[in-house]
Every structure is written in C-alpha cells, then in structure tokens.
C-alpha cells in the first residue's frame, strides 16, 4: 500500500453564518492523480487554501505525510508544491528571478532552477519579465515553481486554465508521468470534467461545500453503465424489462435500462417476442459530466 500523502479529516470552514466547506474528508496516496471536481463556488479553492495553511479550518485537520499543517507547518510545506487559484508570480521580475526567489526560500541551489525549467520546457523564456508572459506561460512557470525542491505532493488549482489544447495535453502527460514514474501524489482541482476524467485515478465531487461522491474514476463511470432503447410502446417495454429483473425508466420514446451491453441480446429477444418494436439499442457510458449533473440535481456546471 503506498503512503498516504494527504489526509483531510472533517475539514470545515464557516464564515459568518455560511458554511463554505462542510466536513470534507479525503485521502490522496503517493503515485496517484486525485481529481477534485466541482463548479465554481463549490468550495474547491477554500478547501485548497485550508490544505496549504492559508486559511485556518473552523474544525477538522489536514495532515501532509503525517505532518499537521497547522502545528508542523514548515515540515508539511516542505513536502508540497502548489498553485492556488491563479499562477500569480512577481510580474515585475523575470521568470528566472521568480524561481530564484522561491529557491532561496527553500534553500535549494540554482541547479534546481535549470531542472524545473527543463521539466516544463520553458528554459528559453526565463530571462523575460513575467509581465510579458501569456497565461499559459505563467501556468508553466507556476508548475516549475511548484516543482522546486522536489516536493512529494503537488497541489494544483485548475492547472489547465489558460492553456491551449496542446498545452493541456502536455501538462496532463507531465502530471501522469510525475505520478506514475516518480511516485508523486498529485491533487488537481478542476471544473472541467473531461480533463479530470482523462487525468485522474480517483476523484471527489464537491458541491456546495460537501463531497458528494468519491472513488476511482473508472468505478464511478462503469457503475453507471446503461443501455438506451428506442421502442414503439414505452410503457409495455418498461414492464417487460422489470419482469426480467432489470431496472428501467422511461423518457419520451426511450427506455433506459441498467444493464451491461453483453446482457442485451436476451432483452432484445424478449421485447420483440412481446411484439414491441425496437428501433435501436445503444450503450450509454455516463461521463463524469452526466454523473455530476445527476449528483448535484442538475444545477449549472460552469
């Protein structure tokens, strides 16, 4: 069993009378990419700020490789590299000066700067002022900065923001590489469901401060596999399916049944055997997006 990199225990933040984050608990292991999914205003950033010690939780605790973030701040932070919200760096300094600034805070040498710059392919832009960078470049510099001092846990808030599709793929491959080859734990927040689906091993879905679901991405998707049938008589079709012990619901001229594709032929036979016209049958793989809509009761996802 890999080590637990990050453990949040009943994390709660109440501001005034409003509960921003409501007893969120989760664990991130070494060697995995953990997706933190939710719409804007769901409490993602507040949670991340509590993870990295910027905000004091109202109750609950955060441990990073066993170090309590509040009591052993320095030890905990030495294990972390992070970007919170935007990759805000000192715009009036060059990329190199920014990296040197944070390297000095960690007490690591200049060799580290070359290493992290090469990691995100931006050695050639280091001498320019950050103010002249595009958002994508700043995102890369932010990740380079987060990699200084070889952290064992990366916490990245919306790392795909501002990147073009090629850049997003590059970051995704980099993060997967770091998790798989170097055994890092990577915590990535996003409101882009497709991104998390492609990148994460496990995912937590947060909405209105509460974690609605948590689990391996593959499980969450395969557990929701169903078939869609377009039939002539919807009402009778549902009865037939239920008689076969298959959960089914009707929607206009369609019937949805929770059944694997492999088990479809006998169902089709039963339907046509009862004289019900079947116009088509197709497999539906619920994406995280649909899952999310279902879990949150269909509220707007940004």
């Amino acid at each position, binding site marked *: 069993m890999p080590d637990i990199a990050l453990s949040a225990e009943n994390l709660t933040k109440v501001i005034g009378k409003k509960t921003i984050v409501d007893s969120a608990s989760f664990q991130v292991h070494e060697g995995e990419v953990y997706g933190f999914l939710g719409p804007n205003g769901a409490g993602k*950033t507040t949670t991340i*700020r509590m993870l*990295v*010690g*910027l*905000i*004091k939780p109202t109750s609950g605790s955060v441990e990073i490789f066993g170090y309590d973030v509040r009591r052993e*701040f*320095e*030890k*905990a*932070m*030495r294990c*972390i590299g*992070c970007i*919170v*919200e*935007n990759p*805000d*760096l*000192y*715009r*009036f*300094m060059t990329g190199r*000066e920014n990296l040197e*600034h*944070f390297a*000095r*805070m*960690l*007490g690591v040498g200049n060799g580290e700067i070359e290493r992290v710059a090469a990691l995100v392919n931006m050695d050639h832009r280091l001498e320019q002022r950050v103010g002249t960078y595009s958002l994508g470049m700043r995102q890369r510099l932010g990740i380079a*900065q987060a990699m200084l001092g070889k952290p064992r846990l990366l916490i990245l808030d919306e790392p795909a923001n501002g990147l073009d599709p090629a850049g997003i793929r590059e970051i995704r491959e980099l993060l997967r590489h770091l998790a798989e080859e170097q055994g890092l734990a990577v915590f990535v927040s996003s409101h882009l469901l497709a991104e998390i689906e492609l990148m994460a091993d496990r995912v937590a879905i947060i909405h209105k401060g509460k974690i609605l679901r948590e689990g391996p991405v593959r499980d969450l998707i395969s557990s929701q596999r169903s078939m869609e049938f377009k039939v002539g008589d919807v009402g009778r079709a549902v009865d037939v399916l239920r008689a076969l012990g298959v959960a089914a619901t009707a929607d206009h001229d369609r019937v949805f049944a929770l059944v694997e594709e492999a088990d479809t032929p006998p169902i089709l036979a039963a339907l046509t055997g009862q004289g019900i016209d079947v116009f088509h049958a197709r497999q539906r793989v619920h994406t995280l997006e649909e899952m999310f809509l279902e879990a949150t009761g269909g509220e707007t996802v940004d």
Partner: protein
Amino acid sequence: MINLVQNETLKILRRRRFMVVVGILFVILSIVSYSQVEKLNRSRDQNWRADLQERIARYENWVRRARANEAWVRSARTEIKRLQFYLDRDINPEAPTVPLVVRVFANAAGWLLPLLVAVIGSDIVSAENAEGTDKLLLTRPVRRWKILTAKLITLLMFATITLVVGAAMAWIVTVPFLPARGWDMPMFNGFQMTGDVVKLESIRQLPLWKDALIAYGLEWYALLAVAAVSLLLSVIFKSSAASIGTMLASLIGGTILTRISPDWTAGKYFFVSAIPLSDYYSGAAPPYEGMTMTFCIGLLAVWAVGAVVTAFVIFTRRDVFG
C-alpha cells in the same frame, strides 16, 4: 533570514519605486543647491547682518499683528530670539556652505523623507496581496512571522538608506558650487522659551558636524517609526493604493492639522506631530505645549512598537483569501 531579506530587497529594487524615490531626492536637492548658490552670489554684495535684522523686524511686525494663532506666534518668537542670538555674537548662521546645506537637509528631511519611506513601506505587504503572490509566499516552508520580520528588516534598511542617500546627495549636488569647508562652524541649539524669555542656559553650542550627526540621528529614529507604522497599514489594507493613500494622507493631513488647529491638543499624541524631530531639536517650536524631546521620542517609540506588534498579530493569524 538573510535569504528572505535578500528576496525582499530584490523585490523593492525590481519594482523601481526606490529609484523613483532617489530620483525625487536628486531633483529636490538640485533645486536646493541652485537656490543656495544664488544666495551665495547675492550675499557677496549684501550685508548679512542687515539681512538678519530685516527678518527679525518682519517677524516682530507679524507677531504684533497676528494674535489669532498662539502656536504660530510662539514659533515666531522663538525664531526672533534665535536670530538675535546669532546677531549678538556676530555669526552668520546662513552663509551657504556645503556642510550647512547638508545640515539643513536634516530638517527638510523631517518633512520629505517620511513621505518617501511611506511610499516604499506601505505596499511591502499589501502589494503581495493585491498581486496574488502572497499565496505562494505563505505556502513555502517558512513561518509567517519570519516573512514579516524579513520585510520589517528590509524596510528599516531602506529607510536608513534613504536618509543616507539623501545626506550624501545633499553633499554631492552642492560640493561643485559651494565652499566645502566649515564642518566645525559653531551651531547653537536648544532655544527654549519660558514665557517671553529665552533660557540662555539651555542653549548648546556644538560644532556643525556633531550637531548634524545628532539631527540626522533623530531623523533616522523618526523614519524608523514611520516605517513601522507603514508596515502596519500595509498589513491591514489589501491594496497598495489604499495603504499608500492612507499613510500619505495621515502624514500630510497630520502635518496640516498641527498647523491649523493647535487648540485640538489631542493632536500631540498623533505620531505625525513628533516626526520633525530634528526640526524641534534645531529650535523650531513643536505645535503643542508639552512636546518635549523626551515626549516626542517616547511617543514615536510607543507608536512604532504598537504598530509592529499589531502587524505581527494580524499577519500571523489571519486567513488569506483571494
């Protein structure tokens, strides 16, 4: 800690604000230098004794007419006695020389440098907040109190440098034009009034260089207090504009307040009243009764320590939101 101070120093220099401050000092001192040279040229064919007498007469005239404002009358009376003192001893207190310009700058610095230090100091924390860089700064394995200590040290350092640069520049811009000697010229200080009489026994005679060192020392002390207060404002406000604005308004507003409403005696507990320490040392009357040198130094100490303690408490405890 050295690493952290190095970081903060680099940030101030890269922001170029300090260079603007040095530029402002240069321009102002060039103008001072120019006017002193003009004065020197004029004084060659003018009798300085007549000049002093004329000024005394003007002040006396003014005191007789302007009864309304107690504080102004008091400071005018002090000035009259001071000028008379030099006249009686046949010393020209204002023959322009380089040392004298450098010495006089210590007094001018009491009004000018707090503004410049405030400009540097008031955004040392708030700029990180406004630019969002605090999120990175405060998630590195360095405790918050260490970061604020580094910022405070850097700020005190820059306050010191500003004063030294100012003094050095006063020398540099005048030395090509004015006589450079005269560091041992006698200076008279400590004109105190008891009623309408100057207490002669409290007057000190010092060589100019010693007098200048004391004046600069006092001004340095006042600047450190200004730096401490601007650190607090910089912690309280989230935007640089708000903190710089508030600090400058306090400095300028406070100064104006001491001039226009000396009856509001609570003003003497406001730190701004005590900032022109070297001015008071040179004999300018403080705006409120009972503002002795000890009172001013104590007042600044209380404000500075209070501001720093408050800044640390807020900074180390608060939640950092976007």
